[in-house]
């Protein structure tokens, strides 16, 4: 054995997750009525690996006729699916959950290849949580009358579901599981840049023997989405994505019978008090903003630090950033992966430029950025105020805007001073302060001494321009039931 110079810096060699076990087709068609069918448009678009710019598959683009077929299939499946004994529905959902677990590794690798998120996150968070959502709602299927006692309830009909690119499989699970548990049928469209895991889920659904037409998965961009939103035989729209598109959807279905849930943007306030456990709070701030490259609607993108500890917190933040590993999403040691698309990278860069032009003091982690793929170093902005654009608007990237505050009332006022109201975080060791803030912060989710925690049993959703309705938990069932 050769001598090792123990004075040399200890580096972690790459530890790539193997891609050998995954099965990807070259081309993916639409999943309608239990079968994969070619689209009437005959058009395909590319699904690109954002870390390498390689094309990993071609995805079919659904047009109006395809959506019509999918809705027809869903409508006809609804007749029997909604009448099926609830415990039988539960069995199918339970089976889907089990099959996701069995193929978790394959899903995790594809999720990271297609979306750019680190394998650690897709392996430990996205995929297990997706399976858990199916398990959780499988459990509710035959207990709905106990969930909402003294009511008479029935499913709504066909749900048109449009999901974002930040948690592709997980969002599909959030949407499909409660919908079919309540006896609805589904037409789901994944985001254009991340269709693959939804299509792999379609394969599982096919294998599971779920009656044909109960879940239909159609792919495409914004135009395909608007065909779903505007289809007359859809009874409910569930959308997760930007506030801009959410507003458009709300406008276009106004006056129709369609029910609506929206889970939109956010500009989460993460508030750290002088009496917080500082090292753990710093870790929480890092996870709040850099989790999934900041592509998280509830990301803690506005940090409020109490003035007396601002210096030490910022120093510790910078230091912690130095040990983050940015790179190949498939490397098990990667903390921060690739930005999901060129388009999103351009948006983030635009905001970083605006931040600098408006006089914000920028701090970025030094890292080697590869020529191919989409990369953005973790970024802090100091010396900004509520009046700065980067404090007001959702960036959806690894960019944290830091402000200081003096008193509790001041920070509550500032935290609520945003059109959004999705999430917030409070860091203090004092229990009474936690209760005061959770009560007064106007946000759908408030975390205390933690951040970005998700669980199928816990409802999630926003107030103000962050959305309507809740997903997850008991609340998540409501959106898919008619109460008489």
């Amino acid at each position: 054995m050769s001598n090792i110079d123990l004075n040399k810096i200890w580096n972690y060699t790459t530890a790539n997750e193997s891609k050998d076990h995954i099965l990807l087709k070259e081309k993916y068609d639409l999943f309608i009525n239990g079968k994969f069918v070619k689209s009437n448009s005959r058009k395909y678009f590319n699904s690109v690996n954002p870390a390498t710019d390689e094309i990993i598959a071609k995805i079919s683009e659904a047009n109006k006729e395809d959506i019509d077929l999918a809705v027809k299939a869903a409508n006809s499946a609804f007749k029997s699916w909604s009448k099926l004994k609830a415990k039988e529905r539960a069995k199918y959902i339970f089976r889907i959950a089990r099959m996701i677990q069995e193929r978790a590794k394959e899903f995790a690798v594809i999720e990271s290849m297609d979306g750019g998120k680190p394998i650690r996150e897709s392996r430990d968070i996205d995929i297990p949580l997706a399976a858990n959502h199916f398990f959780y709602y499988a459990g509710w299927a035959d207990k709905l009358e106990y969930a909402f006692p003294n009511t008479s309830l029935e499913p709504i009909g066909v749900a048109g579901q449009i999901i974002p690119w930040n948690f592709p499989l997980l969002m599909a699970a959030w949407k499909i599981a409660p919908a079919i548990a309540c006896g609805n049928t589904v037409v789901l469209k994944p985001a254009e840049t991340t269709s693959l895991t939804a299509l792999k889920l379609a394969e599982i659904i096919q294998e599971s023997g779920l009656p044909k037409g109960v879940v239909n998965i159609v792919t495409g961009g914004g135009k395909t989405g608007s065909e779903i939103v505007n289809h007359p035989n859809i009874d409910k729209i569930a959308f997760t994505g930007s506030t801009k598109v959410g507003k458009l959807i709300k406008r276009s279905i106004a006056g129709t019978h369609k029910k609506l849930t929206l889970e939109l943007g956010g500009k989460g306030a993460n508030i750290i008090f002088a009496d917080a456990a500082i090292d753990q709070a710093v870790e929480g701030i890092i996870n709040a903003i850099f989790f999934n490259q900041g592509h998280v609607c509830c990301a803690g993108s506005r940090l409020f630090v109490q003035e007396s500890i601002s210096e030490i917190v910022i120093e510790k933040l910078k230091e912690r950033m130095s040990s983050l590993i940015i790179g190949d999403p498939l490397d098990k040691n990667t903390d921060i992966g690739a930005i999901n698309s060129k388009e999103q990278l351009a948006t983030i860069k635009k905001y970083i430029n605006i931040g600098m032009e408006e006089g914000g003091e920028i701090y970025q982690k030094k890292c080697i950025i590869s020529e191919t793929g989409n990369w953005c170093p973790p970024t802090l902005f100091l010396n900004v105020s509520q009046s700065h654009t980067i404090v007001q608007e959702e960036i959806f990237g690894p960019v944290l805007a830091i402000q200081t505050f003096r008193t509790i009332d001041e920070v509550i006022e500032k935290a609520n001073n945003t059109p959004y109201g999705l999430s917030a975080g409070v860091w203090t060791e004092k229990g009474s302060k936690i209760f005061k803030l959770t009560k007064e912060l106007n946000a759908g989710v408030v975390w205390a001494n933690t951040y970005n925690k998700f669980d199928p049993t816990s409802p999630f959703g926003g107030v103000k321009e962050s959305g309507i309705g809740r997903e997850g938990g008991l609340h998540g069932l409501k959106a898919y039931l008619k109460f008489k």
Partner: protein
Amino acid sequence: MSFPNLLTVPKIDKIGVEERVNRFCKRSIKNSSKTHGLHLALSMIDLTTLDGKDTPENVKRMCYKANHLHDSLQGIPKVAAVCVYPTMVKYAKNELKGTKIKVASVATGFPSGQSSLDVKLSDTKFAVNEGADEIDMVISRGKFLAGEYNFVFDEIASIKEVCGKAHLKVILETGELDTLDNVRKASEIAIYAGADFIKTSTGKINPASTMPVTYVMLNAIKDYYKKTGIKIGMKPAGGISSAKIALQYLVMLNETLGHEWMNKDLFRFGASSLANDVLMQLQRQESGYYESIDYFSKD
């Protein structure tokens, strides 16, 4: 040497600490990183025997092992030190003459520390006179839990004085301190009272060293370094029985205190059975297969 301001000692959130520690454990250490890490781990071991039944003979055998870990493996480092009771110091010293391996001695009424200051001082002086290079003292946990922080501080400071040139490691016995907040507080007291190293455990109490406890102590060291520029060492002891766990501790050290602490002058593992597992892993790194544990000598 001044008493630390305990009012400004950062609070510790246990759940947050455990989450951070889990992240360290998820690092994947392979190939050349693994070999490098294993070499580091080996070089940081304080090979330990602390039993009532210790005799000069078994101490001598352990010292021989310290100097000849596994002669068929070329180019591996030696352990940092051996750790014994005061009465065994002279035998260890004699056996390790001419090597760079240090002799550490526990002292101050180890492991309970329930002795008078006079006894503790003479216990320490005896070990130093016998030739101990390092003293591993225990703090008075009873006094600490009773809130007599000044007593604990003064005791450490007095022991430090009689250590002379010997390095002082202060054992907090975190398994008896109940909370991570107490671990942090005790770390501050030990560091400000003159510890060269802070150490988790005696190995006689369950739990001994854990990663969360060590993480809290590493942060105390980091904050002290930021304030004063002085580097304090860290020694987790007990419970680190496999190479895998040792590598996880090294990841934690690497990502908390960084490269400057990645050496035996500032980090030690107190362990009795770790060395053989590290050797077995190193053997596998070289040959590609595991050898039977029976090929690794137990001394």
